[in-house]
């Protein structure tokens, strides 16, 4: 008897559900009745703090919030994978996602090598990559595709912002500490151009090998140059080591360090006493206004760390994508891309963000200065915002684009 009642109850519960399915088929046409989002990131290696599990959490939060607010009639699922910073693992996984699991969009995809490989697969299979993790401008230039969105930052924005703003604020003589490979050279060049365009002078630069352990001779040269600003055109462990060494040599007392690829993760790892006074560009800061604080605190309760710009960007990217699918009424890549181009992004992450033809999502960037330990009121309270760099100034102008999709 009890079982019979239960059956009836289940059947009763299923009837409206079946109705929903019918309604959904009319409203949004999906390839497999589901929107599947893949988060491809580095979960075990050097970038795992910057993206990693935090990006997965952010994507899941975005989906939960979207379901709660918009009550969409389609199912949404998040899958994730660790590409272990290997382009072949990443590209293989994404290919498999597209071919066998019906994934519609991949996000995060930090590490430029992996990102460009995934961009090619995504174009071939006609899905969408909203890249929130990689830095290379190649994604929106030589290797741009109609299926790529570059959402959070790139090396041009990170280099150009401080180059312009710091020079204008009086830091008009520069010396560069550059990692000796293509990436370091391009950071140095982009920054130098901005410095010179704004009336500053570059006094010199020194190349250090990748993953150098001893920075003393390089820093002595930087010190001897008497430049007001020392630009760190390097990344990851090299940035961390050069900042540490600069402190030990007392360089930070007379000169200002400017990071060209520094994030809140590095500052958190090194601590304020070591990094105070440094300047660099960020795409997002949790303690910016009430909106960012509200979201970030929510993120903090789940992840136990404040979000990096990648985490906030991934949340925003997933939300933007889901809205576009809903509005376009399909998960077809070209239609959704068009919808995203037509609709400005406006949320806690970006105000009036605009997706350009070359795939670049243009939004405001922030020039920050690291607080002195005494000025920090709470954990993770690290930055003074020195300037808001409007998106159009921060990113590479379309006129300079090397992307074949851009009509000139």
């Amino acid at each position, binding site marked *: 008897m009890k079982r019979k009642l239960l059956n009836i109850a289940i059947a009763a519960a299923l009837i409206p559900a079946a109705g929903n399915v019918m309604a959904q088929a009319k409203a949004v046409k999906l390839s497999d009745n589901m929107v599947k989002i893949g988060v491809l990131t580095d979960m075990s290696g050097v970038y795992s703090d910057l993206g*990693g599990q935090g990006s997965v959490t952010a994507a899941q939060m975005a989906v939960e919030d979207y379901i709660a607010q918009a009550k969409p009639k389609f199912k949404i699922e998040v899958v994730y994978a660790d590409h*272990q910073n290997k382009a072949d693992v990443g590209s*293989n996984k994404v*290919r498999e996602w597209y*071919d066998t699991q019906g994934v519609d969009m991949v996000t995060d995809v930090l590490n430029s090598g992996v990102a*460009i*490989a995934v961009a090619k697969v995504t174009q071939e299979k006609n899905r969408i990559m909203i890249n929130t993790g990689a830095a290379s401008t190649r994604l929106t230039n030589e*290797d741009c595709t109609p299926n790529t969105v570059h959402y959070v930052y790139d090396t041009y924005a990170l280099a150009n912002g401080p180059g312009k703003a710091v020079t204008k604020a009086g830091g008009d003589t520069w010396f560069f500490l550059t990692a000796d490979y293509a990436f370091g050279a391009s950071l140095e060049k982009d920054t130098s151009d901005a410095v010179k365009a704004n009336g500053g002078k570059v006094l010199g630069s020194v190349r250090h*090998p990748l993953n150098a352990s001893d920075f003393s001779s390089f820093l002595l040269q930087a010190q001897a140059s008497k430049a007001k600003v020392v630009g760190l055109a390097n990344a990851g462990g090299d940035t961390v080591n050069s900042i540490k060494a600069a402190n030990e040599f007392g360089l930070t007392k007379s000169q200002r360090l400017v990071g060209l690829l520094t994030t809140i993760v590095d500052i958190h790892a090194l601590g304020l006493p070591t990094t105070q006074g440094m300047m660099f560009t960020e795409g997002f800061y949790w303690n910016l206004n009430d909106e960012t604080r509200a979201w970030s605190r929510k993120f903090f309760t789940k992840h136990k760390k404040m979000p990096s710009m990648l985490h906030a960007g991934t949340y925003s990217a997933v939300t933007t994508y889901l809205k576009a699918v809903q509005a376009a009424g399909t998960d077809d890549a070209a239609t959704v891309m068009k919808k995203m181009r037509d609709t400005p992004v406006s949320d806690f992450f970006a105000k009036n963000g605009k997706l350009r033809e070359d795939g670049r999502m243009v939004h405001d960037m922030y020039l920050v200065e690291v607080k002195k330990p005494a000025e920090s009121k709470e954990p993770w309270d690290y930055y003074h915002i020195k300037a808001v760099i409007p998106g159009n100034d921060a990113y590479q102008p379309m006129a300079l684009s090397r992307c074949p999709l851009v009509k000139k």
Partner: protein
Amino acid sequence: MSRRAIAYLMLLAAGLAAPFFIYPVLVMKVLCFALFACAFNLLLGYTGLLSFGHAAFFGAAAYVAGHAIKVWGLPTELGLLAGTIAAGALGWAVGSLAIRRTGIYFAMVTLALAQMIYFFFLEASFTGGEDGLQGVPRGALLGFIDLSNDLNLYYFVLAIFVFAFWLIYRTIHSPFGQILKAIRENEPRAISLGYDVAKYKLLAFVLSAALAGLAGATKMLVFKFATLTDAHWHLSGEVVLMTILGGMGTVFGPLVGSSVIVVLQNELADKVGSLVTVIMGSIFVICVLLFRRGIVGEIIAFYKRMLGQKA
């Protein structure tokens, strides 16, 4: 037909049927790494030389083949050949320096030279630095078989693998292979028997480097890109792990070892999150502690023990 021949035929049949049951791109990747490990095993398992720089040959061939196909517009087959020859030539250069030393010094020399090659690729403009050489077209085989179709490419890759595997098998079981084994077992004795040991070692090194290059070039073709990971010393370590896990000095060991590693890397990628490296490390430790002969080595030893008891 001997039992062995039947076993090989069954394996071949499994290889032919595999893409209908398993995702073909994954199987292709397994085959490429299996070939890489087999080439490495020729050196470690049969000649007793532990090279810690084999990724350099793997990566060099990938870059050369990629550049040849993408920029020079060479047909796919010639591109792969160019990569293989480049790796062989590089193997000759590295080998002729390295074989002057033995043991740990040999390993260190190969590691040092491989790191030099790695930094060359990092700096050289044609490799695209850390962004990698991307978007290499797969082209068409003999001008008319479209390789952008995964299934066509799979059989092409399988053919390359079978050819290279046969080549390695023949090498191991030839008089040349016997001498290599003699060098592994007792080098002074091989010298006293009048063999020019250095020449044999160098030849084995070049052969191993060229086949590692063939594996790298083929992998480049499967994924359409070559990146720094292919030339990084991590990969040199990984191939050691694959060979030891499978069983060094056995014909099938590297095949089994690389399948286990590649499939685990792929399958764990979206299941355990950040634990991938921990799991891989544990497998290595367990393998070294519990079954030192490797998976295939232990099976062979078990089989022999069973036969011994019966007799």
